[in-house]
C-alpha cells in the first residue's frame, strides 16, 4: 500500500504538492453504465411481471432464470468494481522534486514511471470537446528532454492549473539548482 507521506524512493526534503486522479466524470460514466445495465432488466421484469411470475413458478425454468439473473447482476457488480479499481489505481503524484505516474490497464497491466522536474522540457494542457469544456477536465502532456515519450495525465480536473503548477515547480527547481 502506498503512503503519500512515504513515497517510494523518497528524496530528502521531498513532499507531495499535488495528488491527481481522473476527474469525477470518470466515476459518473461507471455509475451511468451500471444504472443502465441494472435498470433495464429490472424495469422489464416489473413491466412483464405476470409472465416473469409464471416462469419463476415453473419447476425447471424458475431456477434457471434465478441463476441466470444472479450471474447477470453479479457480473455487472464485478464489472463496476473492476472499472472502479482501474480508475482508483490510475494516479499522478506531483512532488517538489519529480512527477510519478502510475497507470493500471485492466488487472494485469500496470505501469509506474517517474521523471525528475529538471528534465521537463515543456507542458501542454488540452481540453477537447463539449463535455471537457463544460466540466473543465482534460489532459496534460509533459515532454521531457531527450525522451520521445510524454507523460500523459488523463482526464484530470483543471488541466490548465496543473500545467501552471508543473511549470512553477520546474522553475523553482531550476532556480534552486542555479544557487
Amino acid at each position, binding site marked *: 500500500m502506498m*503512503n503519500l507521506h512515504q513515497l517510494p524512493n523518497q528524496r530528502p526534503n521531498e513532499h507531495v504538492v499535488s495528488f491527481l486522479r481522473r476527474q469525477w466524470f470518470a466515476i459518473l460514466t461507471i455509475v451511468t453504465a451500471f444504472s443502465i445495465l441494472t435498470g433495464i432488466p429490472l424495469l422489464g421484469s416489473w413491466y412483464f411481471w405476470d409472465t416473469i411470475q409464471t416462469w419463476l413458478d*415453473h419447476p*425447471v425454468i424458475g431456477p*434457471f432464470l434465478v441463476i441466470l439473473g*444472479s*450471474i447477470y447482476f*453479479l457480473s455487472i457488480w464485478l464489472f463496476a468494481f473492476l472499472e*472502479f479499481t482501474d480508475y482508483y*489505481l490510475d494516479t499522478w503524484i506531483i512532488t517538489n522534486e519529480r512527477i510519478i505516474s*502510475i497507470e493500471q490497464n485492466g488487472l494485469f497491466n500496470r505501469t509506474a514511471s517517474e521523471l525528475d522536474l529538471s528534465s521537463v522540457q515543456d507542458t501542454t494542457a488540452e481540453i477537447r470537446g463539449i463535455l471537457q469544456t463544460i466540466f473543465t477536465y482534460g489532459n496534460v502532456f509533459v515532454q521531457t528532454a531527450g525522451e520521445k515519450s510524454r507523460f500523459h495525465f488523463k482526464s484530470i480536473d483543471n488541466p490548465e492549473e496543473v500545467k501552471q503548477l508543473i511549470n512553477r515547480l520546474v522553475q523553482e527547481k531550476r532556480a534552486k539548482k542555479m544557487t
Partner: protein
Amino acid sequence: MFDFPDINIPIAVFLIVYGAYMLFYVLYALFNVYHLIRYGVYGFGMYLIVTIFAGGTIILVAGSVFLLMEYDWSYPISLDKTVNYYNEDLFPSL
C-alpha cells in the same frame, strides 16, 4: 414420427454451473481487492469501497440463495417433455 429419448437430468446441474461461476467470481474479486490494497493509496476511501463491494456481493448472493431455496432440486429435466415447456402457461400473453 421422431421421439425424443427419455433422458432425465436433475435440475441440480444448474447449481454446478452456478458454483463454477461463483468460484470465478470469488477468485477475480479477491484478486481485485488484493490489487487495491497492494497498490492503492492508503486511506479510508479504499476500505469503504472494499466494504461496499463485499456488502453488495453478500446481498446479491443472499438474495439468490433465498430465491433458489424454494425450488425442488431433485426435479428432473426430461428431454421427452421439453417441447411441453413451450405452451400457453409460460407465455400467457400469446
